[in-house]
């Protein structure tokens, strides 16, 4: 069954995503709330969240959907899809990296953001 193959592919994708061995991207213009894509030479995988439901689709070389699964259709897929979605989202927005940077900066005893001696005025901006 194609769904079983899709599950196997998505599990492999999740492992690679967790290991940061694939590059997710976000198009910013989709009908869904959150939408992430990873492209391969002749196929792509799209994971998205819409109204609380997480789905994943596999597209062929012309961008036509050839198979999909979603968290509301099969309970056992929900956890894997959630992990995949979070991993893609984390990578696109660099959430861990950003939080780590903030934690490191705040843990430092050095002065991090010294207030400017004189406030910037309109004359300081050359345009």
């Amino acid at each position: 069954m194609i769904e079983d193959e899709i599950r196997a592919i998505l599990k492999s994708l999740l492992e690679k995503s967790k290991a940061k061995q694939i590059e997710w991207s976000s198009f910013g213009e989709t009908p869904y709330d959150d939408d992430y894509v990873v492209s391969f030479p002749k196929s792509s995988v799209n994971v998205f969240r819409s109204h609380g439901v997480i789905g994943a689709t596999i597209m062929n070389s012309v961008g036509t959907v050839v198979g999909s699964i979603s968290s509301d259709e099969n309970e056992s897929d929900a956890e894997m899809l959630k992990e995949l979605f979070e991993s893609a989202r984390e990578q696109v927005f660099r959430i861990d990296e950003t939080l780590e940077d903030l934690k490191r900066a705040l843990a430092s005893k050095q002065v991090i953001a010294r207030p400017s001696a004189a406030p910037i005025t309109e004359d300081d901006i050359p345009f």
Partner: protein
Amino acid sequence: METLRLIWAWVQNNSSGLSILLSLAGFAFLWLQTRKARTAAEAARMATERALRAISDSDTISDLATIKSGMKGVQVALHGGRYETALLQSQSLRETLDQLRSRRGFGTDERGSRIQSMVTFFGKLQDALERRLAEPEFQVSVRPANRKLSDYTSEVSVWMEEMRFLRGGSSND
């Protein structure tokens, strides 16, 4: 007369050796001619291959120009709220982009992945546009879509330059 008689006698005595020498000379001449002909045929074949490659590259450059212009067309259509036009152009772009995969210089995995990224983007954009046409209250965020289209247009421009000036005349790939 005496001299001629002596020469004739020498020829008669050494006729087999002379035959061999003449045969060798004939063979050498024939070999040289064949080599010349083969070199000319090889040169003609290479020239034909170069010409075919140049024609194929011209087609690719033309297709890239069509893609670039199509992407700009989608940007203009989105900006003007002409969603049906943008939808039709997106479909056409998906097909033309897919055809690039078989062209010289576009067979690598890296290039394939970039083409796939564009094809997927247009597929997703079509989804959004179809939904907009079916549900007029659904809003299409034009700015992020146009920003992505600008990125892709720049990338296609780089490919065009590469085909025109870097790959032109190269026998690689």
